[in-house]
């Protein structure tokens, strides 16, 4: 088994809430391998975006901090790198695409020069060479008339086109890892599928791994090889996408699958009752964090946080689940 591209170990991110530092991501460990698309799924407040931002070193100063943990990428711990060296890594080796293309692009710069910026910064290309390469990238991400569009400002483009520009900017220097933080959430469903298709193509043809953060399991289903499901700052299930969808092992994953809106009219639509605990609520939840909302909870669930372990009958598949009843429950999946 080759070494993973990115190894996150025991990452804990804390936020200042209610007068104390409280964890929003707790002891999170993840591996991303080469040529792999990993989906990081969870509801709002699960800590998925925070995880991605922490790895990139983009957490806002002041109210949020990385309490402990490491993120090893190509032999270096990103969380411990000084700012200058981290800047050299960002853009060149790891890149990020954000949710709202309207605010993640500089409204005052033309689109072409924004794609060219990392090329000039990291590869030292001249203005002309960078512009040419930028145009090639704009074409690669499917924008028509790339020369003309390169001279446009972001506000002149539609949401989908802006997100393509953001992807081009991120991938211009050929990074090995792309962190995509809900890149399709702000887009129309029609445009969503195009962007997903684009990401899939780019990943397939290059040496690229993607971490795809989303709250939408269906979107993740289309694109990802492996999926890690997060709840209240912890990973509660990790499995190859096919296996997760066919047979989830954690009640939360099963709930998410059942709650997905379908094209077929279901007689009784399902949703998960209640809401995820906030950082302050967690102080009063000593046991499994999903237990209050779980259909299968038993009193033992409230005693201690279950560990993330491989289930007993996993048939050689690399799975992990955080549920004390994982082995006994027969949960339903969906047909992909």
């Amino acid at each position, binding site marked *: 088994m080759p070494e993973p591209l990115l190894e996150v170990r025991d990452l804990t991110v804390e*936020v200042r*809430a*209610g*007068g104390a530092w409280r964890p*929003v*991501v707790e002891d999170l460990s993840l591996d991303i391998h080469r040529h792999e698309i990993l989906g990081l799924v*969870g509801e*709002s*407040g*699960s*800590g*998925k*975006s*925070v*995880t991605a931002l922490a790895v990139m070193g983009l957490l806002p100063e002041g109210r949020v901090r990385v309490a402990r943990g490491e993120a090893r990428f190509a032999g270096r711990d990103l969380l411990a790198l000084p700012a200058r060296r981290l800047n050299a890594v960002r853009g060149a080796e790891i890149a990020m695409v954000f949710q709202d293309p309207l605010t993640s692009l500089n409204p005052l710069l033309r689109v072409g020069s924004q794609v060219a910026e990392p090329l000039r910064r990291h590869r030292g290309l001249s203005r002309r060479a960078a512009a040419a390469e930028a145009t090639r990238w704009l074409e690669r991400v499917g924008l028509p008339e790339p020369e003309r569009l390169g001279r446009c400002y972001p506000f002149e483009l539609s949401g989908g086109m802006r997100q393509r520009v953001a992807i081009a900017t991120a991938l211009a220097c050929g990074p090995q890892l792309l962190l995509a933080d809900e890149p399709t959430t702000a887009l129309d469903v029609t445009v969503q599928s195009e962007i997903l298709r684009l990401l899939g193509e780019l990943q397939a043809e290059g040496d690229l791994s993607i971490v795809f953060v989303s709250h939408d399991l269906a979107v993740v289903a289309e694109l990802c090889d492996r999926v890690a499901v997060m709840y209240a700052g912890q990973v509660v299930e990790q499995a190859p996408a096919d296996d997760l969808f066919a047979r989830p092992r954690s009640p939360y994953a099963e709930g998410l699958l059942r709650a997905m809106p379908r094209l077929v009219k279901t007689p009784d639509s399902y949703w998960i*009752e*209640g*809401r995820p*605990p*906030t*950082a*302050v*609520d967690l102080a*009063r*939840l*000593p*046991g499994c964090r999903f*237990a*209050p*909302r*779980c*259909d299968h*909870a038993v*009193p033992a*669930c*409230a005693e201690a946080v279950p560990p993330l372990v491989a289930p007993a009958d996993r048939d050689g598949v690399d799975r992990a689940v955080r549920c004390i009843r994982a082995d006994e429950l027969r949960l339903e999946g969906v047909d992909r």
Partner: protein
Amino acid sequence: MTLTGVPADGPAEIPSLSSGDRAVGPLRRVASELWRRRLARVSGAVLLMMIVIAVLAPLVAPDDPEAQDLGDSLASPSWAHPLATDQLGRDILSRLIFGARLSLGAAAIAVAVATLLGVLPGLVAGYLGGWVEAVVMRITDALMSFPPLILALAITGVLGPGLGNAMTAVGVVFAPRFVRLTRASVIDIREADFVHAARSIGVAERAILGRHVLPNALGPLVVQVTVTAGFAMLAEASLSFLGLGVQPPEASWGSMIGEAARLISRTKLLVIWPGLAITVTVLALGFLGDSLRQALGLEQGSGDDA
């Protein structure tokens, strides 16, 4: 399925409890946010102390500020006169304490005038737009194009000397900032969904303005008030220094600096005390405003973490 010690969840949901178990209104939330900041607590305490001293001046001051003792003029600091005396033998400390009344009162007048003159036009301009906005903003621009001190002098010249008139003039000078700020806030808010929602419910326009737009626009205004108060104090100091504000024998901190400046060759000490008083007060106002801004910013930016 309910487990002991775990919040139940049925048809009646329990919303997230972010700050304690009781429902707290927006005012209380901001206050508690403010209280958490040490800087805000310190500045607030300083300002409160200043105000209390000013109000209770006759009880606090050791001497009559106007009592002259020519034999003791320009004495060094001593137990009887901890901050020394001025050229007429008057106790500096007492003058400082009584001066607080004038300086703080002056700032209050200026801010009140600025707010009264500035908020309503800004509100109307921002909400109605069109020619109303154009007219209001052009008048505002015209006022702002005057050098502030010159404008204050001109207005004072019209109104006549005296602290009240001088501070009214300062208020007029600062009013345009309030107009602009209010207008900008209102423009921001009038596009918000909850304003459209109110309209779609059938709330009358005037009620929308008063119940929805104005309260939400107050946040930046409150911060501006604290900042303006600081500037107003400095303006009062300048005007009094020039002899246009406070008239002797009354003394504000600014006029004390004016007097002391003329005596600088004989004693350097006299300038320091009123200068320090102004500095500390303006700093406290500034820090308080900053903390308020942070506290309010959090209020508006609430949502989900991740």
